[in-house]
């Protein structure tokens, strides 16, 4: 089971650097450890995401990035 985090702030990026397919959603996520970390959407796009939302967090070892996804009900 993935640890749960809370979105502190988020945005969907429409104009990105080359090599990044747009649009995609990123967020600062408050982790259970107390850290606030940058994460990217596991499913690339989540335009309805808002600060305060709960998300599941996992680490993508290949890209060395944190990914978030909505917890299933």
């Amino acid at each position, binding site marked *: 089971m993935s640890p749960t985090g809370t979105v*502190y*702030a*988020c*945005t*969907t*990026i*429409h*104009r*990105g*650097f080359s*090599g*990044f397919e747009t*649009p*995609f959603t*990123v*967020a*600062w996520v408050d982790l259970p450890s107390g850290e*606030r*970390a*940058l*994460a*990217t959407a596991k499913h690339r796009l989540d*335009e309805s995401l*808002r*600060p*305060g939302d709960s998300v599941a967090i996992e680490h993508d070892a290949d*890209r*060395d*990035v*944190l990914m978030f996804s909505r917890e299933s009900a």
Partner: protein
Amino acid sequence: MTVHVVGVGMTRFTKTPELTHEALARTAIAAAVADAGIDASDLDAFFCGSVFGGLAIGQRVARASGIGEIPIVNLENACASSGGALREAYAWVASGGSDLALVLGVEMLTNMGGGLVSSDAHGASQRIGLTLPGLYAMRASRYMAEHGASAEDLASVAVKNRRNGSHNDKAHFRDAVAGAEVLESAPIATPLTLLQCCPNVDGAAAVIVASDAALRRLGSQRAVKIAGWGMVSGNALDVVGSEPTATARAGQAAYDRAGVGPDEIDVCEVHEPFTIAEIEHIESLGFCGHGEGASATVAGRTEIDGDLVAVNPSGGLIARGHPLGASGAAQVVEIVTQLRGEAGDRQRDGARVGMAHIMGGNIPEIDSNACVVHIFTR
């Protein structure tokens, strides 16, 4: 020792890829030298701010501008480069090391390919593709959630600044825009749209500062005093939401040194590469309470004739354009022009105390950067 601004000048900030740093600098320096009523050969120190100007940018432009073999200091502090250069000139003059010093900001962005300015970021932000507009957009999302601000509220900053810029012949954008036009422009990073982002432009701005003795020699009746300054850097561990912000800390230092408070500032140029930045900075500078920046802007309280303070009467970065290292000096040009009462259609009536606030940061943590604030009095 009081340090005085005795001359200002700048190019129009706009897209001029056919020009060079040297040509832009020559125009700005010639205007400032003429404004001060001196010759370039009278200058005895030169502080040059630029981000992408390259090695020995100050020496290169000096040679093209008739400046002699005087001390030249090049300063790169991201967007705060020429704001920081003014602080260095202040220190040299205040300590007796210079009588008549030139501060220049100069930048050519249009020959770099346009589009997004690299944040030069490392670590997680680079790996997830976070852009600078994206960083500010996240800040905006948080502000909207905490304070109930709307996308229309954010856009009101761009509407105000574009209207102000329409009265400034040095601004890139010379036309006003409606809120709907701002919101319907291309999405860049939700909730920020294209017209809420500063345009990349080229330009140069010059400021000449003088000692008491040099001011007496010149006999200038239009001089403006540098009454206080503040400069801080962020903490590398700062993240979004840190308090007090770098702006609050630099602003407080400037207020303390000048012996004035936020309610005494008549006119202020604030670093607003994106609309949300102006809203947060006017709170951090104490012009209104935490969470009140958006509603104060919507209510017109930061317009040129607003009851709080005139914010970005020049049009700011959003209308004037943002040639990174040159913007700090351009802010000083505007504040000095306002305090002299020479700002024409964008004049704040009776402006006596002014402030310039600039931040530079090319690392992911939005508050972890150079922040420079100066307060000026007539």
